């Protein structure tokens, strides 16, 4: 028993290592502290950066300052999409800069914005019919099932499958397969049929939510409360509080259990 125990990792040390790995490395990194370095090429120019950084933090380390093309830093907002190619590979890779670790010999460029058509509609007046998606996004019909969108997806979604579902008016499949989309736009930029997958899927989700899902009671109740002015007074009070009071409130807030 004793022997097995001595082989066990010390939980304190494990926690320290995790804390160390999560430490923001950009600010105040001493070169002498960095053990592993990689070379990345940002828009063709080479930079030596610490190997444990994400593309986003590595670019900041190299001196880039993000005003656009960077949002939540948590992999949710879709603002920092990046295209890269590893040295010696023919395949183009995609990823969110905030979620992808740098690799040696990575050639990359950020594509923070994708020019895309977005249909205008009044959702309350849209018919929930098999051809509604095609009406607003007729280029859907140009899909040749090449699956390039799926290859380009930074979230590993089956993009082509949801496009094909949309073509035949299968809202449920389209919604389920596109649900985790963060609208980074890589699919639309790579699509040879010039389809705007992510905007189309958003319309599909809105129509499906409105027409094919039961009304969520908690939302109806909350909306009623808002209309009745339940939160006007508390909000007024909160805006008048000092920073210290707000901090105290924040840390003592009611938390959702896991």
């Amino acid at each position, binding site marked *: 028993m004793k022997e097995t125990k001595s082989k066990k990792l010390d939980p304190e040390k494990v926690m320290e290592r995790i804390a160390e790995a999560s430490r923001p490395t950009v600010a105040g990194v001493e070169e002498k502290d960095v053990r592993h370095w990689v070379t990345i090429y940002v828009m063709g120019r080479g930079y030596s950066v610490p190997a444990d950084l994400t593309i986003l933090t590595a670019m900041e380390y190299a001196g880039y300052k993000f005003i656009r093309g960077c949002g939540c830093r948590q992999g949710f907002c879709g603002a920092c999409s990046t295209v890269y190619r590893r040295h010696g590979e023919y395949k183009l890779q995609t990823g969110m800069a905030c979620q992808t670790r740098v690799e040696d010999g990575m050639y990359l460029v950020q594509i923070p914005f994708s020019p895309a058509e977005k249909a205008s509609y009044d959702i309350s007046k849209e018919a929930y019919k098999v051809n509604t998606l095609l009406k607003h996004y007729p280029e859907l019909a140009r899909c*040749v*099932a090449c699956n390039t969108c799926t290859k380009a997806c930074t979230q590993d979604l089956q993009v082509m499958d949801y496009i*094909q579902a949309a073509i*035949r008016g*299968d809202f449920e499949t389209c919604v389920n397969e596109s649900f985790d989309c963060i609208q980074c736009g890589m699919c639309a930029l790579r699509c040879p049929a010039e389809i705007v997958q992510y905007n189309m899927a958003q319309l599909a989700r809105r129509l499906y939510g409105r027409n094919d899902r039961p009304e969520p009671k908690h939302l109806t109740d909350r909306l009623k409360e808002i209309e009745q002015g339940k939160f006007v007074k508390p909000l007024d009070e909160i805006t008048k509080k000092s920073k210290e009071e707000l901090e105290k409130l924040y840390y003592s807030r009611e938390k959702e259990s896991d």
Partner: protein
Amino acid sequence: MSQTKIAYYPGCTLKTTAKNFEDSALAVARALDIELVELPKWNCCGTVYSLTDDNLMYHIAPVRNLLRVKQMVRDELVTDDHRMVVLCSMCYNALKRTNLRVKENPEDLQKINDFMYLEDDDYELNVDVIHFLDLLKEIGVEKIREKVVKPLNGLKVLPYYGCMLLRPKEVGIDDPEEPNLQENILAALGAEPIDSPYRKVCCGSYLTVDNKYVVVELAYKILSHAQKAGAQALTTSCPLCAFNLDNRQKEIKEKYPGFKNIPVFYFTQLMALAFGLSNECYGFDLHHTKPEPLLKEKQLC
């Protein structure tokens, strides 16, 4: 006898405007001890077979569907290990011709397989595309006749084929000049098949989108000749032909006020009717020219 399970490719319209074709075909197949098992995942057939020699992009969609059959065999979803049944004539044509093309051009297939690297398997030419009519021919008219509980006596029907089932010859399911697959089935159901040279001509196909008046003229010719020959209804296996021949009767009537409407069925609807299957599979609400008056007159519904 254990039930045969065979892979089935639906296609987009079979899930929407031609839902009654799918419903009736699946019900008819079940009545004949065959389960048509839908591909768990499928995409557009490619719609129109691409004749361009140097652009393989348009052949990816059909090949990807063919590949799925192998996965179904491996997952033991089907008992027939090499065939895929198609109902829609247009899908049948696109899938079968592409299958033929990649068989004859192994280099093209290699390129397509390389391009589809996210798939677990390569397509290895191990699938035969067949039309539901092929399968019914194999089952034989005897067995079909045995299942008839409500003979379609006195119903005169023109079996319309259009282009996609018969041409080109390499993929045609029957003699392109003298087809008789539908005729044999209709006769087995007790109906009277009517002959007309127009049962093999084009309905105008997708010109219905850009220039519907071409379709109006063609459909008028097909339908009025059918009526002259004595037909009271038509059958087809193509959702696009069905749309052109049925829904365009509205425009035909506007241009030729003397025209009398005539119902257009999928051949499987008449089979389901004669087999006495549940009303739910007929889907007459999807028809422009309602078939009920004719069927009531013949005491069939």
